[in-house]
């Protein structure tokens, strides 16, 4: 096993989900992952990009933003360790990024090649099940956060009630 792979495995094992993986699955995912250091204001991808990676934040903070005409770029979520972003690439519906991702501070992210991950899941359904189950959890909690944001609970009460 080469140094880069060992380094990758070491970083990935900081993430609780990876600690639960069997050795062969861990090594498989690590083999399609690259580590990347990021700096403040570094753009990881733009809204609309057709890139295809799943990212895990190992250190630092990544802001997800959407451009709204007349309002500018709005930051709608920040990702911190051990959270992930770019998950839609694993089961793509829209084949482009629906939001941009920018690093807010110095950090370290793990970039997993989604096409190769999809392939690995097809070849090994056990791994596939674990990955999809994990994604389902992530999506569920992300959905709840989004719903709470949607409720706009801190807004002026009068604007909330259409009565």
């Amino acid at each position, binding site marked *: 096993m080469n140094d880069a792979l060992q380094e990758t495995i070491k970083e990935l094992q900081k993430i609780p989900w990876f600690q639960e993986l069997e050795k062969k699955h861990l090594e498989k995912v690590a083999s399609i992952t690259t580590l990347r250091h990021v700096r403040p204001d570094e753009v990881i991808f733009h809204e609309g990009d057709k890139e295809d990676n799943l990212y895990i934040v190992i250190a630092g903070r990544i802001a997800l933003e959407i451009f709204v005409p007349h309002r500018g770029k709005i930051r709608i979520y920040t990702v911190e360790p051990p959270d992930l972003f770019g998950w839609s690439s694993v089961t793509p519906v829209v084949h482009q990024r629906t939001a941009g991702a920018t690093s807010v501070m110095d950090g370290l992210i793990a970039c997993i090649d989604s096409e190769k991950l999809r392939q690995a899941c097809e070849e090994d359904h056990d791994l596939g099940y674990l990955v999809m189950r994990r994604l389902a959890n992530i999506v569920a909690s992300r959905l709840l956060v989004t719903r709470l944001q949607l409720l706009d609970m801190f807004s*002026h*009460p*009068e604007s*909330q*009630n259409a*009565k």
Partner: protein
Amino acid sequence: MLNDRQPEIGSTIVIAKVAFNAILSRLREKGYETIGPRVKNDTLIYAPIEGVDDLPRGYISEQEAAHFRLTYTGHSRYFDAIPGAQSWKQFLFPPKAELFALRKTNNRWEASTPESRSPSYAFIGVRACELAAIQIQDKAFLRSDFNDPIYRARRERVFILAVNCMYPAGTCFCVSMGTGPRAKDGFDLSLTELEDVFLLTIGSEVARNLLDGIPFELASAFLLRNADQGLERAASQMGRKLDISNLPDLILNNLDHPHWQEVGLRCLSCTNCTQVCPTCFCWDATDEMSLDGKETHRERVWDSCFNPGYSYQAGGNTRPTIRSRYRQWLSHKLGTWKQQYGTLGCVGCGRCITWCPAEIDLTKEIPMLQEEAR
């Protein structure tokens, strides 16, 4: 046997009905305003009375859900008619009370408070349920951590002549609530009306002093037995029944029961029930300012949990539906009241049933909560 000493507290004396006027005069001499039941506009109200002739002699009240009729049958008794919409609450806890007035001078407000002395009322003819209601309101208004000065001033002065009901009406259920038909305590005098005489039980020193000098006769065992039998018969003739053995839990464990929705569709949120209920105590404070903004009056007024604005708060309403407001009223009155004040808040007077235009009857609504939620 005539006796010149004052009767003992707890003893029962017998007087001729016409002699009652002497007691009323005595009360007025001592500065009391004697208030009692009177007929007005085909209904019964509580208003000043001077003598027994002002009482609704010969009347009865027929009461049912959304139905009240005062009928003259010509019988010879004074206190048969079960009360109407009014209760004694309006005297101790007036519907409108001036709190203070403010006048602005030099960017500062000066307060002035109403001069008038609190009236001394003598309540003549307080039913056992109404007496229980006064005692319940005492717990709300007179507490160790706070007491209401308006209520306190009137309550301290009030003389209570209770009356034991011999002929309950169609919506009465004091027996179920444990509040009647006999007044137990908390009265100065309690009266039981027999065919020819009044029996008066002495309840306090104030009552003893009042009767000082009036020749009295202790009630005989025969008369006392008459009274007991009459009250026993009355207790068996209640118009309504309510099983309270499972309260407050039945209500508090069923706050999401579908029946609330059903009642919510019938209830008009008209606030009649809270107005006529002798224990309801919610109030609001209003400000009335002069056009130039230099003077303002603050008043306390009755409020009701059925009013939509009651639960309004910073741009929203925590009880926007009638269903939620009806549930608040009932789950308070026969539910959470127990934890707040040690007893349930209902005395079984039946007014809320009689005066509800939608015929909502809590003695029927509460048992519905026992039905399995489908």
